[in-house]
């Protein structure tokens, strides 16, 4: 049986719904970046990038890129009114100092105590860490956006990470292709699940206990 699941864009859409008006947000390279395009209308969100911009906007049309105006993913961006430039130490003062409302990152693995592994797949690879280890300790909320399981079908949500950690006890919410899960003192708490799946269906592909605490909502996401 293939489980019904959200597309990457749909996970990004769902994560975007939780970003409050007026928030300062850092979106990690890759899938998290796509959250910006689903920002609900009427909300003003200010995006931060590690390389020294607050208030950047969408990508410019092809051919109009200015390669001094890029985000941490090296992609060309544009500026919104009220943008500012600053150096890397000030940029990470914003991160480490708790000034961001939200950071959203990708994950290889997330543990029920909030541990995150997203920077190294082990000894054979050439490791790369970027700003992830800073972001997980700085933002007021740290969320993860990821497929529910790895490409080989193994669970990414676990009792304990087996890959090298990015940070300990840092993640507070996980948006997956199957569910929205909070991380609490009790561990994983299921908040939303894809319609048509039972709690047992989601539990079966999760490597740690999913607690139920209040209603579990249907993850109704438009085709995006």
């Amino acid at each position, binding site marked *: 049986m293939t489980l019904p699941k959200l597309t990457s864009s749909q996970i990004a859409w769902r994560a975007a719904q939780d970003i409050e008006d007026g928030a300062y947000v850092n979106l990690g390279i890759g899938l998290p970046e796509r959250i910006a395009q689903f920002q609900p209308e009427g909300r003003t969100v200010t995006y931060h990038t590690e390389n*020294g*911009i607050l208030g950047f906007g969408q990508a410019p049309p092809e051919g109009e890129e200015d390669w001094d*105006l*890029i985000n941490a993913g090296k992609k060309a961006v544009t500026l919104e009114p009220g943008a500012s*430039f600053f*150096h890397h*130490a000030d940029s990470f003062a914003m991160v480490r100092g708790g000034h961001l409302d939200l950071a959203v990152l990708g994950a290889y693995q997330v543990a029920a105590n909030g541990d995150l592994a997203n920077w190294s797949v082990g000894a054979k690879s050439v490791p790369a*860490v970027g700003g992830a280890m*800073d972001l997980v300790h700085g933002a007021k909320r740290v969320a993860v956006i990821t497929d529910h399981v790895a490409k080989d079908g193994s669970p990414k949500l676990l009792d304990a990470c087996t890959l090298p950690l990015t*940070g300990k006890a840092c993640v507070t919410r996980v948006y997956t292709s199957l569910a929205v899960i909070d991380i609490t003192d009790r561990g994983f708490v299921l908040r939303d699940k894809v319609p048509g799946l039972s709690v047992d269906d989601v539990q079966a592909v999760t490597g740690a206990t999913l607690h139920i605490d209040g209603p579990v909502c249907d993850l109704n996401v438009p085709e995006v």
Partner: protein
Amino acid sequence: MIGGFGGSGAPLELIHGLIDRFLETGHPKDLTVINNNAGNGSIGIAAMIRVGMVRKMICSFRRSSNADAFNAAYHDGQIELELVPQGTLAERIRAGGAGIPAFFTPTAFGTDLAKGKPTQDFEGKMYVQERWLKADYALIKAESADTVGNLTYRMAARNFAPLMAMAAATTIVQARRVVQAGEIDPHSVITPGIFVDHVIDIPNPSQEEAMVRAGIVYA
């Protein structure tokens, strides 16, 4: 220390001048290079690595679609890597410039990158003690420089440059525009001239991202 992040802010003319000198004279070599990345494409730091000038890289992010020069040297064991979280890298460089030999950060606590480093509890949370980073030389790219070394930067090309200018014993700047002292508004100076030793006028600097995309190979 070499400024730049991704394809923005790399002082390519200075780097390529250094490569030219190495190819002619065999010096400088066995360099330790501090930069956020470990070279892209076949220019700049990637070219320094490829020609064999670099013994050690201190960086936060080495992986990219075209960091082949570093990957090859790393897997051959020809180059040493010190991987530092990006915010810690920035703060260590600032500390080097500000006379702060060590500081505590929550970043990397409990991870492999904090192994062997002192840790301490402050107000119920654990932190890692990190040390300053200094350098003999910083090579950076500025937008405007005046004759006493005051600098401004263009957009996100600022990134690590103001920090590196503080942390190096000798700071060498390539500037797109060199103006007389007094022509930069004192309010707009990002790097005061006290941190700058030499300014070279490079009116039409190369942009790393554009060169990488064009597949240009240096040396």
